């Protein structure tokens, strides 16, 4: 028991030291950069594995993936962001138009105009919407400034992604050395299972949101609704979240469609719902498959907890983390008995 005691003491010391280190901004930034690079590398790993299976050298495949990443980021910046910001400015103007429409609507209904309660409710809604949009604009500007400030860290990320992709086995073997010898088999098994399930999940979610974005864009374009690009990207991004996402994504689209005419709003609603049904019942089960085999109820719970802790990002990360925990539990359950 003496040896076990010693191990426990060392382990607690390591944990306390790492918690203290986390308080220093310096270490937090380093860990942030590493985490972001790791997530990017892990999400791009399927492409890397595909290139390797086609016969490319490990380093060449990594380089191709990283260059592709830089290239597409540049593309996004040069082409999509100006269109995005143009459409967003018009978006704000459209909000004002919505306000005018609601006002004229309330005037048409006699009695509503005089109703003090209705007026105060309306005022609160306007205030809250204005606040929200203002805050959103501020947040976006802040993020852009933050992005510019941490330019050094940003430029390190592609290099880290390259090494995470090319030498992933080496890095993993070194990390495994941190754990006691007897548990290494379990750790490797857990890592293998997690890799299988998580990479499948990530690819399926990305492909799903891409498909939804393209379909939404087609629908909005066909119905001649303004800001198709912004709205379809928003819808695609929100679709990553399983049950709440599509609903949140539909709301802006229908609101903007309402601007054009109530009929186009109804059409938008119908088509978006159709897209949602196709995605939910046909495409999604095939892609996500039976591997993420958690009952919907715990998934909802995870989403709520994730949303409370980390907002939108929390909701997106909640399910992979939940799946990882389930895998760890199952493996420990198997190996312990």
């Amino acid at each position, binding site marked *: 028991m003496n040896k076990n005691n010693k191990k426990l003491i060392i382990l607690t010391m390591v944990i306390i030291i790492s918690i203290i280190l986390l308080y220093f901004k310096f270490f937090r930034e380093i860990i942030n950069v590493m985490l972001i690079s790791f997530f990017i590398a892990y999400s791009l790993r399927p492409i890397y594995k595909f290139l390797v299976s086609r016969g490319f050298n490990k380093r060449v495949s990594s380089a191709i993936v990283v260059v592709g990443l830089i290239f597409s980021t540049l593309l996004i910046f040069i082409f999509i962001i100006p269109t995005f910001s143009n459409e967003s400015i018009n978006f704000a103007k459209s909000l004002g138009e919505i306000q005018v429409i609601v006002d004229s609507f309330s005037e048409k209904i006699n009695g509503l105009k005089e109703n003090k309660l209705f007026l105060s409710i309306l005022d609160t809604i306007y205030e809250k919407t204005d606040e929200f949009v203002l805050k959103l604009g501020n947040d976006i500007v802040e993020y852009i400034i933050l992005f510019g400030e941490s330019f050094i860290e940003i430029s390190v990320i592609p290099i880290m992604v390259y090494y995470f992709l090319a030498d992933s086995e080496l890095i993993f073997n070194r990390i495994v050395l941190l754990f006691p010898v*007897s548990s290494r088999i379990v750790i490797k098994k857990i890592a293998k*299972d997690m890799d*299988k*399930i998580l990479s499948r999940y990530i690819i399926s979610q990305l492909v799903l949101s891409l498909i939804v974005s393209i379909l939404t864009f087609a629908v909005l374009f066909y119905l001649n609704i303004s800001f198709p690009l912004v709205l379809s990207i928003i819808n695609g991004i929100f679709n990553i979240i399983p049950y709440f996402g599509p609903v949140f994504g539909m709301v802006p689209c229908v609101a903007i469609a309402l601007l054009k005419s109530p009929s186009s709003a109804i059409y938008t609603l119908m088509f978006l719902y159709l897209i949602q049904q196709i995605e939910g019942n046909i495409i999604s089960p*095939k892609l996500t498959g*039976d591997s993420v085999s958690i009952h919907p109820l715990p998934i909802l719970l995870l989403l709520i907890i994730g949303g409370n802790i980390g907002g939108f990002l929390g909701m997106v990360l909640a399910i992979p983390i939940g799946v990882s925990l389930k895998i760890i539990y*199952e493996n420990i359950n*198997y190996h*312990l*008995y």
Partner: protein
Amino acid sequence: MFRAKDFILMDVKNVKGKKLGYIKDVLINLNNNEVVGFALANYSIFNKELKIFKEDIIAFDQYMIVNRTLKKDAFPFSKLKTLDVIDVKGNIIGVVEEIVFNKEDFKIKGLILSTGFIKNMRIGKRVVVPKEFIVGDDNILFYSNDGNSTFYTKIHNLKKEDDKL
């Protein structure tokens, strides 16, 4: 001895090297107590439920190679997985968690039952052998044949080592 978990998520390819899918369930025959094959989940859009049977398995280790897939009907182990196991008096002994079968002929050697989260850690998981139970619709009946010995699998070190108390 194999357990169901050894095979779940294993990739399956055919002789030409084409990936057919991955194993998502174990198929059993309760009449002669053996594992007859595995159920595959595949990636294609068509809703095919493919099954592979043990006569067609060529080899397996990290992944499995098979001759062909069939659509024959077979009883999946997942239907047993959450059934209660009750004894003749009606007490619940445990809940089916795993199946244990032979390496050579795939004959079922027993079921591992979970007795409860804390009880698992105290007493261990109960193991029952095929001649001691009958599978019903809602649960499994355990009628102890000799009534002399009960088997448990207890918590042990992750490291495989010789017995030392």
